């Protein structure tokens, strides 16, 4: 794969992650942070995919599968917490 393309993609993803992390830090509400976290987990899927392609190691895609399949549970957990009347931070 073209080195430039990969560098570009990596950079874009890194920048995207940074921005999502900023939203996570800023909040202001907990759901805002969780949304940012959800986005980051999607990005992780993407990053792992790109890295798999970059290194040519197919097995890395399995990691992405796990992220895609399980990471949303954190959001479900947070949602449940919020609905149960957790403090509205």
């Amino acid at each position, binding site marked *: 794969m073209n080195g430039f393309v990969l560098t570009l993609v990596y950079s874009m993803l890194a920048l995207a992650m940074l921005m999502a992390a900023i939203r996570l830090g800023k909040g202001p509400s907990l759901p805002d942070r969780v949304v940012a976290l959800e986005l980051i987990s999607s990005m992780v899927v993407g990053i792992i995919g790109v890295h798999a392609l970059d290194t040519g190691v197919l097995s890395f895609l399995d990691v992405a599968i796990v992220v895609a399949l399980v990471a949303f549970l954190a959001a479900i957990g*947070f949602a449940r917490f919020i609905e149960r009347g957790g403090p509205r931070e």
Partner: protein
Amino acid sequence: MIDLIIGAFLISGAAFMLLAALGILRLPDLPTRMHSSTKAGALGAMLIMGGVVLGFAQWLALARGVAIVLFIMMTTPIAAHAIGRAGYLIGVPLWDGTIKDELRENYDSRTHSLRSDAADDDEPRV
């Protein structure tokens, strides 16, 4: 040629990721941020996966790519729904520019019951 297509997939995927990030950074309230993040994020991941599958050009990669896309399509809206609902119901403030809200009046935060349409009800409004 194939590299070009792969590159396009990857870059467009990354671009959607970036857009999603920009969106949740810029957009003014929770629901609108979710519009940006869940969809663009999911689409970005799918596009990248498309590129990856093409890049590997193996059946195994395709199988995994399909699984990933499938899982993302299944889990992302569920999470979005859960968070959006929870955020909305506990009253995370909406953007000033929100023009309509047909849910609020039908929701009783004490019993957590949600009616189909308050206007149909005989009960007097409080």
